[in-house]
């Protein structure tokens, strides 16, 4: 059961907190208590600062410390960290800190015969006992190698010193200058083997990134990666940015995009909370505006936001967003919105990400904008960039921060799709583009993907108005997708045609009415004719029957006359 062993070993070692954000985290609680730790690195990489911070924070935790400096004068040391609000003078007055400057000048020293470094032991022992120190820093003990010529004595004495420090039960930091092919120039790692921390600052394309690595930590599971660290006005902070793994929870809740019409495209409810949204597009396609609308909406809902700008200053962003009716200054004043603007070339990619990391930890925003991500990609070496952004995405997701990354693309829409290597990390991807037609460029928005929802697949025309961003259905017809004035013209044309059709219909109606009236008139006339004919017919038949009657009468009368003439003759 290696894991159980590890856990037990970790539990067995007591730790001395460094009080340095991140370092305690990745060492599982701090440096090994009562043992020496070697901090090595090249000149100017922050060894002394780390050591001073260790003592300063120790003093706050009730562990006084002795700083034995072999290089810097105490007054310089005090002055150097005064800018970090480390009041070493006060700590010294309160006997929470003792600084001893050990000066060894080879030119002033003649060596004759056997000697040892008991003087150093006595000094250190005296200082430790005087203030009851629990922590000791030796910075940089290797200076002794320059001051004394007898290496054999020196090495034996250093070995004795580190043993002695362990016996004293003090937690010590021994700094060492980085040497060729080994961790320190004089091989101090031979003597200090419990914990070794390597500091590094690397220059890549003129940009420096500081990194920290725990090379070795006996008896403790520790983070083995290189972690970026920062030295700024708040001191030293290490960013244990790791790939968080894919075990973050996916919230079901939604957060409005700030654009009503876009929400409609996203099932009417907006983005998923904690999702990563990529807004990519060419210059001037409205990426920042989409981001600003989102921020504005989140702030209106009382949520905190951080806007990391890499191209514009805060006042410039605020002014520009005023033109689409967003008052971001209001949110800044209410401390709901923070701007962090740095030029991408100010420091390396890792440092940028470390800054983002720290700011997010400190402010705990619900929403973050990184505008633009593509600048960050240029700040670091290409292969590193994607890995670093992956870490950032994981980190923001694990904190359920909804993030909008904007990304500047070049060229046509098609190349924009292949150009971005980070798109697969994103949950939603909005593509903004300008399409040229009929002598004008019109903005269009297309939702390429939105994981986990039935989103609209339609291209919309994207319009920036004084009241914010509006999306309009584009005209899709036999003449293709029409936007802008072409769409307006087409709409006008359609209106005209409709009117024309209306006119035609009216005319046809009237024509029909007229024809109907005419037919009706004809019908009437024919009926009148018919009536006449019938009257005539009746008259004719009356005459005929009268004639018949008369004829019958005459026949009767003729018959009668014939009969009477016959009787007279007979």
């Amino acid at each position: 059961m290696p894991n159980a062993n590890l856990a037990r070993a970790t539990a067995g070692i007591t730790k001395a907190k460094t009080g340095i954000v991140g370092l305690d985290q990745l060492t599982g609680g701090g440096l090994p208590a009562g043992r020496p730790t070697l901090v090595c690195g090249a000149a100017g990489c922050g060894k002394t600062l780390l050591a001073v911070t260790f003592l300063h924070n120790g003093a706050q935790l009730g562990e006084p410390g002795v700083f034995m400096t072999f290089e810097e004068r105490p007054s310089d040391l005090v002055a150097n960290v005064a800018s970090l609000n480390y009041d070493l003078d006060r700590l010294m007055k309160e006997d929470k800190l003792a600084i001893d400057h050990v000066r060894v000048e080879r030119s002033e020293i003649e060596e004759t015969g056997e000697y040892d470094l008991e003087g150093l032991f006595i000094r250190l022992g005296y200082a430790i006992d005087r203030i009851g120190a629990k922590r000791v820093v030796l910075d940089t003990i290797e200076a002794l190698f320059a001051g004394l010529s007898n290496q054999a004595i020196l090495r034996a004495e250093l070995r004795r010193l580190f043993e002695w420090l362990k016996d004293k039960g003090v937690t010590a930091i021994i700094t060492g200058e980085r040497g060729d092919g080994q961790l320190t120039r004089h091989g101090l790692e031979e003597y200090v083997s419990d914990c070794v921390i390597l500091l590094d600052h690397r220059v890549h394309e003129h940009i420096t990134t500081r990194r920290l690595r725990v090379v070795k930590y006996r008896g403790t599971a520790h983070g083995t990666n290189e972690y970026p660290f920062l030295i700024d006005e708040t001191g030293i902070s290490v960013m244990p940015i790791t790939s968080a793994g894919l075990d973050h929870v996916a919230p079901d809740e939604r957060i409005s995009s700030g654009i009503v019409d876009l929400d409609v495209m996203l099932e009417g409810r907006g983005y998923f909370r904690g999702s990563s949204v990529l807004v990519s597009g060419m210059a001037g396609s409205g990426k920042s505006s989409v981001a600003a609308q989102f921020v504005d909406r989140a702030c209106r809902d009382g949520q905190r936001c951080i806007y990391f700008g890499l191209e514009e200053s805060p006042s410039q962003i605020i002014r520009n967003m005023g033109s689409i009716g967003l008052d971001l200054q209001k949110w800044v004043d209410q401390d709901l919105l923070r701007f962090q603007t740095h030029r991408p070339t100010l420091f390396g990619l890792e440092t940028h990400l470390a800054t983002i990391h720290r700011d997010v930890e400190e402010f705990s925003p619900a929403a973050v904008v990184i505008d633009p991500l593509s600048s960050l990609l240029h700040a670091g070496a290409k292969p590193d960039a994607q890995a670093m952004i992956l870490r950032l995405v994981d980190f923001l997701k694990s904190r359920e921060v909804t993030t909008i990354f904007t990304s500047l693309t070049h060229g046509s829409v098609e190349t924009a799709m292949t150009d971005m290597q980070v798109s697969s990390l994103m949950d939603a991807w909005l593509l903004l583009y300008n399409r040229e037609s009929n002598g004008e460029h019109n903005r269009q928005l297309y939702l390429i993907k939105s994981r986990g929802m039935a989103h609209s697949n339609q291209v919309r025309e994207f319009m920036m108005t004084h009241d914010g961003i509006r999306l309009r259905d584009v005209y899709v017809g036999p003449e293709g997708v029409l936007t802008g004035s072409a769409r307006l013209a087409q709409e006008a044309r359609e209106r005209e045609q409709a009117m024309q059709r209306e006119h035609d219909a009216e005319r046809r109606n009237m024509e029909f009415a007229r024809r109907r009236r005419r037919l009706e008139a004809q019908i009437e006339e024919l009926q009148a004719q018919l009536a006449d004919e019938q009257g005539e017919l009746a008259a004719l038949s009356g005459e005929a029957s009268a004639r018949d009657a008369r004829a019958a009468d005459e026949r009767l009368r003729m018959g009668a006359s014939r009969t009477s003439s016959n009787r007279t003759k007979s």
Partner: protein
Amino acid sequence: MIAAQADDTGYNLRLYVAGQTPKSMAAIANIRKLCDQYLPGRCTIDIIDLMKDPAMAQRHQIVAIPTLIRELPEPIRRIIGDLSDTQRVLLGLDIDHAGDAS
């Protein structure tokens, strides 16, 4: 003693030791012998045991034990070790010893 005309000032030496270690005892013996031989009557030696007075170690920038410091004449000189190599000690203390070659 040819050099005597230049320095009527005496030598003021301090020897820092830590307890009764063999190296410390050797250094004490060596410097006493050297003073008697080369600086008779012109030399004061303070022996400081840092075990008894540890604060002195920081005050006087002592790292190695034993350390011999020439406080006077100026400038201050430091010699570390058990002072067994007399020639180097004389060189370190800048004592002209050309005269004793024979």
